[in-house]
């Protein structure tokens, strides 16, 4: 190790991290960890066992299920724990399409879903199912008329995400639920980004199935759930023991479930204050960036978006370079750039809202938490201004643009 390298590493250790990637994952709250800890070394029993020592584990699982059900206005027994959001998405789509084969083989979703939905749809297409991918407008909102026009007699399921993970846009879930109900079609929503951030009511919004994940709301990783409305004849995901009403066999992840329950309890209790605080800071960030960095656009709906999400495209520069430069200043962010994913295509979401490739490549997602401070945002904006200017200086696209302007 060279001295220079050592010195840099040491500086990095001292450097304060500004974490602006809460859509990727969140910090597990200390209260959540505390609630989980006894279930490793003390209360380690298997909830399925008969003796009293294990009964407390069954109770803990039941309590978490109730906390989650309450947050959605759903009966506790309609919550089925999974290992995460992707598992819940896979289960909902595959099982519903298989179970309702007699009715038809058609599924409607959108072009901006998470890959847990899109790649499952591709798999289903290979199995002979038909999938319609709805367009979105420039803000990332689905067109309800196109949705209505896409419904066929053979349509089994509509799956539309609650809020988009990249650009934060919220979908008209209640309206989609009403359309689905009117046409006798099932409605699933991937609420991984929205659950715990926004109030959700599965009854009022006519949601038949809903996926969510623990680690997006300050809970632990490796735990999620699928809400399945009572009466849906969905196939079991994992066959085995009687856990999760026989639909998802396997000994319960008790510490994960307890932690998830605690995280939901905290999220619900603090939701209004958190939404208000994050929205204010998000709007401050958006306003300043758009005003102070030229040739920048905001991706996603200006107001109808997740309280903690800001997504920008900086013309003439590439996202990965931007991320590395920000990282060197201790700022953790994310991009829809192709280079961050290892493929050559930029984000399917940014392309779906109509961005040309070169602008989609230069995108930046900043997602706040309730711990994000105004000072951190100010520091980030100052760094962004300098980095964007520096990268533009290096960009042949910017050079061409400037020369064209002079003419």
């Amino acid at each position: 190790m060279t001295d220079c390298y050592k010195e840099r590493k040491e500086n990095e250790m001292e450097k304060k991290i500004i974490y602006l990637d809460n859509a990727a994952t969140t910090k597990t709250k200390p209260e959540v960890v505390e609630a989980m800890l006894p279930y490793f070394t003390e209360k380690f029993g298997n909830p399925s066992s008969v003796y009293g020592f294990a009964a407390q584990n069954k109770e803990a699982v039941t309590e978490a299920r109730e906390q989650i059900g309450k947050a959605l206005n759903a009966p506790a027994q309609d919550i089925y724990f999974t290992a995460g959001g992707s598992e819940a998405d896979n289960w909902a789509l595959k099982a519903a399409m298989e179970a309702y084969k007699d009715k038809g083989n058609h599924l409607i979703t959108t072009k901006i879903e998470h890959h847990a939905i899109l790649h499952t749809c591709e798999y289903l297409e290979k199995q002979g199912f038909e999938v319609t991918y709805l367009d979105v407008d420039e803000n990332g909102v689905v067109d309800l008329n196109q949705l209505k026009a896409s419904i066929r007699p053979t349509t089994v399921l509509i799956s539309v995400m609650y809020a988009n993970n990249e650009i934060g846009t919220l979908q008209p879930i209640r309206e989609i639920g009403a359309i689905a109900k009117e046409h006798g079609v099932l409605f699933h929503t991937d609420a991984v980004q929205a659950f715990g951030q926004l109030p959700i009511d599965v009854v009022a919004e006519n949601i038949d199935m809903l996926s969510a994940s623990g680690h997006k709301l300050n809970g632990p990783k490796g735990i999620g759930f699928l809400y399945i409305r009572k009466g849906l004849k969905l196939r079991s995901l994992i066959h085995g023991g009687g856990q999760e009403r026989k639909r998802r066999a396997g000994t319960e992840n008790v510490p994960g479930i307890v932690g998830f329950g605690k995280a939901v309890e905290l999220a619900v209790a603090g939701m209004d204050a958190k939404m208000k605080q994050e929205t204010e800071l998000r709007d401050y960030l958006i306003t300043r960036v758009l005003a102070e960095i030229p040739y920048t656009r905001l991706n996603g709906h200006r107001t109808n978006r997740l309280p903690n999400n800001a997504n920008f495209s900086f013309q003439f520069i590439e996202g990965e370079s931007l991320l590395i430069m920000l990282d060197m200043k201790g700022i953790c962010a994310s991009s829809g750039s192709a280079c961050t994913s290892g493929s050559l295509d930029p984000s399917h979401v940014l392309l779906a809202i109509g961005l040309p490739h070169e602008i989609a490549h230069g995108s930046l997602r900043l997602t706040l938490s309730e711990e994000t401070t105004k000072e951190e945002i100010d520091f980030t904006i100052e760094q962004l201004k300098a980095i964007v200017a520096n990268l533009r200086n290096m960009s042949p696209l910017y050079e061409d643009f400037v020369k064209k302007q002079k003419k």
Partner: protein
Amino acid sequence: MYTEKVMDHFTNPRNVGEIENASGVGTVGNAKCGDIMRIYLDIDENQIIQDVKFKTFGCGAAVATSSMATELVKGKSIYEALQVTNKAVMEALDGLPPVKVHCSLLAEEAIHAALWDYAEKHDIKIEGLEKPKSDIHEGEEEEAEEY
């Protein structure tokens, strides 16, 4: 994911800029793939590259390979510059992650494009230099995905 050398050349890129009335200019890549590289060469009457500058739109590896490529051709004859391969650029950077190897191809291609432009402008033929491809990703096969 990047080596120290890549990070060094990305954060302190050498030879960024433009050359007015350059002897040769080459631009390769396309915005669709997310990287565009432009190289300016200043070549004297003895066919020695006196100065070289670059501008790059792309990821950290694209910037670093541009920077390293300019270092490797500076002061060299046009024939020596022609021998600077993507492998040489990669080795000089202590390697690149597999998904970024195309960036080093882009650097090689950009130098060739600038030399081609020089040859055309001066109406000479450079032995061993082929007309550069406009898009270096042409012909690359997409990885098969399994579901």
